[in-house]
């Protein structure tokens, strides 16, 4: 296990198999235990899907990976989340840096009420980007191309991002996340508010992004998990209403040959 401070490790040089490792994490909201003892490893440049019924803690676990839960007063985590071998919950780790390197796309598209161009450039600018106007244009184009939305918006870069359709807004949000070149992209039900065609576009996009990024996606849609993901983690609420990891493995195995009866029930639609 590498023990180096993760900020000193360059993405490209780092060749460990796992991008993120969760070790026995428990997540609390005040006194309430929302997630109980979850351990799993997220493989680099693969798509990992978190599935499970509502309230099973999958979103909470996802948001723990880039410390977004810190924003909720009273939330607390026990255990370790290793990123480049370093626990991101160590007191010497700045959550800002974690979020800078582990990007996030939210359930509801949330572009800033600014132009498309400004939406993309916001991340680089606040993170200390320096460059010419031309380099900025290039960065914007690359990010929008990366999110497969360039052709649709190239003529209206200076129009508000909020004027786009829902699916376009979500891809804009993905482009915005790409602009700061994160290593991992967390997606919290990115397609739940989109129509089937927009959903398909996002799924195709995820396949492309997989070449360069590690993606973790939370989804309610089991077909989606089966279609896009390489690994699937199935979560369920236990008797005390805390989320637990029931089964984790390659997607084909989870869907075709689940080891746990509860997984099988859920996959086949018998509950949840």
């Amino acid at each position, binding site marked *: 296990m590498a023990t180096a401070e993760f900020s000193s490790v360059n993405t490209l040089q780092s060749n460990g198999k796992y991008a993120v490792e969760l070790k026995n994490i428990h997540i609390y909201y005040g006194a309430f235990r929302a997630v109980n003892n979850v351990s799993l490893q997220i493989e680099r440049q693969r798509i990992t899907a978190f599935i499970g019924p509502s309230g099973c803690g999958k979103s909470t676990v996802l948001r723990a990976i*880039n410390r*977004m839960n810190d*924003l909720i*007063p009273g939330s607390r985590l026990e255990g370790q989340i290793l990123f480049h071998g370093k626990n991101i919950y160590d007191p010497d780790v700045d959550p*800002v*840096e974690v*979020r*800078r*390197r582990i*990007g*996030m796309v*939210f359930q*509801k598209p*949330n*572009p*800033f*009420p600014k132009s498309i161009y400004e939406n993309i450039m*916001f*991340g680089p600018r*606040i*993170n200390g980007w320096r460059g010419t106007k031309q380099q900025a244009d290039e960065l914007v184009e690359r990010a929008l191309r990366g999110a497969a939305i360039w052709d649709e918006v190239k003529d209206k870069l200076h129009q508000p991002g*909020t004027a786009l359709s829902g699916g376009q807004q979500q891809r804009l*949000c993905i482009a*915005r*996340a790409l602009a*700061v070149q994160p290593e991992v992209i967390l997606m919290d039900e990115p397609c739940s508010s989109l129509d089937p065609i927009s959903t398909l576009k996002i799924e195709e996009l995820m396949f492309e992004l997989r070449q360069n990024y590690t993606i973790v996606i939370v989804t309610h849609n089991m077909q989606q998990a089966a279609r896009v993901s390489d690994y699937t983690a199935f979560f369920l609420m236990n008797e005390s209403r805390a989320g637990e990891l029931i089964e984790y493995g390659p997607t084909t195995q989870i869907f075709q040959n689940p080891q746990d009866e509860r997984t099988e029930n859920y996959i086949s639609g018998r509950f949840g």
Partner: protein
Amino acid sequence: MSAQSMDQRDRPTGYLPEGADINRNIAARRLRGAIWQAIFVSSLIIGLLALATLIYTIVDDTFGYIAVQTKVDPEELTGGRPLEELSKEELIEILRANVSAGLFRRFDRDEPFSERSKESVLQLVEERVVGREVVAAYKLTESLLERERIEATVRERFPRAKLEFHSWINREFLTRPMSSVPILAGVGNAILGSLWVIAITMLLAIPIGILGGVYLEEYASDTWYYRLIETNINNLAGVPSIIYGILGLAVFVRALESFTSGAMFGVTDSNGRTILSAGLTMALLVLPLMIINAREAIRAVPQSLRQASYGLGATKWQTVWHHVLPNALPGILTGTILSASRAMGETAPLIVIGASTFVVFFPDSVFDKFTVIPIQIYNWTSQPGAQFRSIAAAAIIVLLVTLLALNATAILLRNRLRRNY
């Protein structure tokens, strides 16, 4: 399964209207709705009636006939030229020729003629020589409906007087300072006083209010002492304004007199009852409102925007500066303008800290004595005589129009700047 047994099985306990009862029941519900609607409408009508009465009373007092009588015909003094066109020197000559030598010297002692403006001399001539005097004033309704009776009364009681239709609100009224003669009085210095006080109030209350609101909303954690502060701020917003007056009197007028009177800066001829004290007191008064309003505007910024910003690696300050504040701005501005109009209409605290009710000069620094529009209204309504009532009504119109303009600006700004998320 037979229909009957199903009927019995599905029938719940209790009674639900059936058949013709359904229509009766609906009719009864509709009637109840109609009665409530009538109550709502009548409440609205009562409100409108109150408003209409207010406006009627004010307008009734503001316009109407006045009977004017002069001691001397101004054209005799000047040989046909209007007084306004004369030079300052000519006006001084007229004054010298028509008042006693002692009175003339007293005017010169009060303020040397060489230093007086032409307007001030003109006012002396009008008051002391021409003696334009309103001997009777009538309300708008009587002026319109009982014209003959008014003309007859005036002819009989003041044979020398001329009857003319007068609007008590006019350009001179807006620009002139206070005077003891109603027809010569104006709200000019009161308007200027109000503007000075509002400027100081807002200069202090806007930054402190917004920054305090940002801290409480974005930074402060949910602990007992912050909750205590919050409760206090909410309570302060409801404290009677006269209490702030007493606070202002104790702190700004008395304790900080050397600062508020300007003695610290070399101003020698004033005490602590200055524009500065008034502005500081008003700032304290509107500060809780500003903080509450800023917090609400900040809270209305969708959480999803903050998350998007944090998710990109923004710090708290970057999130607040780039997203929270710009998106809260319309709400903050609206609240600011509403606070300004509250401060503009407030009277009680200024009476306590000692606003002057009779100021005849225009303020030109924050260390001057001052009067504001509501104080003038208060002063004039407490004077006997129909003419004072009329200028009070005219001043009320000035105040109302100012407040209306401020509120309209608030609405326009809110609509202009409102964003879609």
